[in-house]
């Protein structure tokens, strides 16, 4: 019998727990040239804002040891064009679309989500509370009451589930997590990138024009796992885990630590077929271990 990979989050069923992460799958158009997006449990689109944004001047990315730094600067087409072109394009795929929303302030989140409320293709929204690459970006990420307020205001205008995406750049991530739960978030996703820097020793210049950037990739996986587990113990709502996932072994680590679903980010740049491989390998693993439903793994970590 084929193992059941489906999971339910915020009352919505996902055919499998493998999503692609915001900013690492664009709006799906390019990745669709590599594999059928309908194979994915879900797809989180690139952060959108009220107005289009060009992003930071190049260089915007740099390679680090087992990772990368990025300071794209939330380059995106803006919510109008997003709805007209990008959501439209995604209609042909049988996967959940989670629309990631960013904002300079609370009101922008609410406005964008209100526009998305009327788009049934937007199965969920994910609020990017943590972009370290824009001026105002870190404010909500580090302020529990502001985070709570933002979630609850968005809940008023968006009728489907709301996910809050948390920053790891805080002393106690459970505080923000609990605030988002109190604000009514149906789920939390973590982690976004760690703040990092790299220097060109020939020019004495930072390698990114934004000076700092967000660190992602395999390098940060241990940090992500620790935070997922810490938040899992602190809240009741489901967690979507991400940070450095490359293969099904990584996914199982996240599930055991308490994630009900996961997102694949930077790995897509290196191996675009990663999600497909992972789904196949997870099926094999569950069959071998005689686990009927993947949800049985969630939070099964046996701590010392």
């Amino acid at each position, binding site marked *: 019998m084929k193992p059941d990979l489906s999971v339910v989050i915020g009352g919505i069923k996902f055919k499998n727990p493998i999503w692609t992460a915001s900013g690492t799958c664009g709006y799906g*158009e*390019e990745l669709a*040239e590599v594999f059928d997006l309908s194979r994915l449990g879900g797809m989180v689109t690139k952060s959108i804002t009220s107005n289009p944004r060009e992003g930071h001047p*190049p260089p*915007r*990315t740099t390679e680090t040891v087992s990772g990368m730094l990025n300071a794209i600067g939330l380059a995106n087409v803006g919510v109008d064009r997003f709805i007209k072109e990008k959501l439209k394009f995604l209609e042909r795929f049988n996967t959940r679309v989670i629309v990631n929303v960013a904002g300079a302030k609370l009101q922008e989140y609410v406005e964008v989500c209100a526009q998305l409320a009327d788009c049934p293709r937007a199965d969920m929204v994910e609020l990017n509370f943590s972009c370290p690459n824009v001026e105002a970006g870190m404010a909500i990420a580090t302020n529990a009451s502001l985070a709570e307020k933002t979630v609850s205001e968005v809940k008023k205008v968006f009728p489907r589930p709301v996910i809050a995406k948390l920053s790891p750049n805080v002393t106690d991530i459970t505080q923000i997590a609990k605030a988002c739960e109190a604000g009514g978030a149906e789920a939390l996703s973590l982690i976004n990138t760690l703040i990092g820097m790299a220097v060109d020793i020939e020019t004495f210049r930072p390698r990114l024009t934004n000076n700092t950037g967000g660190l992602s990739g395999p390098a940060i996986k241990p940090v992500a796992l620790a935070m997922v587990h810490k938040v899992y113990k602190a809240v009741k709502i489901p967690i979507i885990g991400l940070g450095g996932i490359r293969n099904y072994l990584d996914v199982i680590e996240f599930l055991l630590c308490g994630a009900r679903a996961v997102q694949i980010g930077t790995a897509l*740049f*290196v191996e675009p077929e990663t999600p497909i491989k992972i789904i196949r390998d997870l099926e094999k693993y569950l069959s071998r271990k005689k686990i009927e439903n993947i949800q049985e793994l969630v939070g099964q970590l046996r701590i010392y």
Partner: protein
Amino acid sequence: MKKVVIENAVVIKRDRLNGDCRSLTIGNFPKSRLLKPGQFVHIRIPGPDVYFRRAFSVYDINPRAKSLQVIFKIVGRGTALLAELRKGDRLNVMGPLGKGFDFPFLRDKVILIAGGIGMPPIYFLAKKLIESKYDRRKILFFYGGKTKKELVNMAHIRKLGIKLYPTTDNGSYGFRGFVTKAVREFLNTETGQFRIYACGPQAMLRAVEEIARKYSIPGQISVEAPMPCGMGICQGCVLPLVSGGYTRVCRDGPVYQFGEVLL
């Protein structure tokens, strides 16, 4: 929908060219026939401390052998590791990526300008033009290097039977001076309907565009940028456009019309 191929390819031949340049012939890439001049492949280089793939222009293809060839220069960690691969080693190759060159009108005199390691896509274009029955005599290949050592595979290029104008900065081989100086001198004496294709260092491309402006010659350049994803997703490889905003070199390029990108 366009399809990107990702293959566990295999090194079938490697050659040490002049200086720091190497040639790799990569087999087990069944779709090599799809690769067009100006397009690139994104190669995953096995080894420590190389996380992203690395982009390399296609230098040649052999559709029957399901192989492709790249020529590269050792400039850092990734290319150093690539140079160590031996026959039989596996390496993952993704392609075709990017937009290739537009072909010229049959009547055009085609000026090809290659600077240093910018040569591979220009050679491939020349070869494909000839295969497409363009008149060999109307194809002029300007190939510049700092020294003679930087000019690689000259014999190979000569076989194309086109006019080849090698240049070196120090005059150790061919015309003495920048390749763009040679082009300028050529244009001062020749007339006709020209079209230019160029690939090389940024300073060279700037000079090429200047010449093109001065002589009102249309054409295209192929540019470089570090490429995390190579497919247009990450927006990490952008360059500013003259018309404002940014362009993703990997997907909207790497080939651009003269005057499109801010060099």
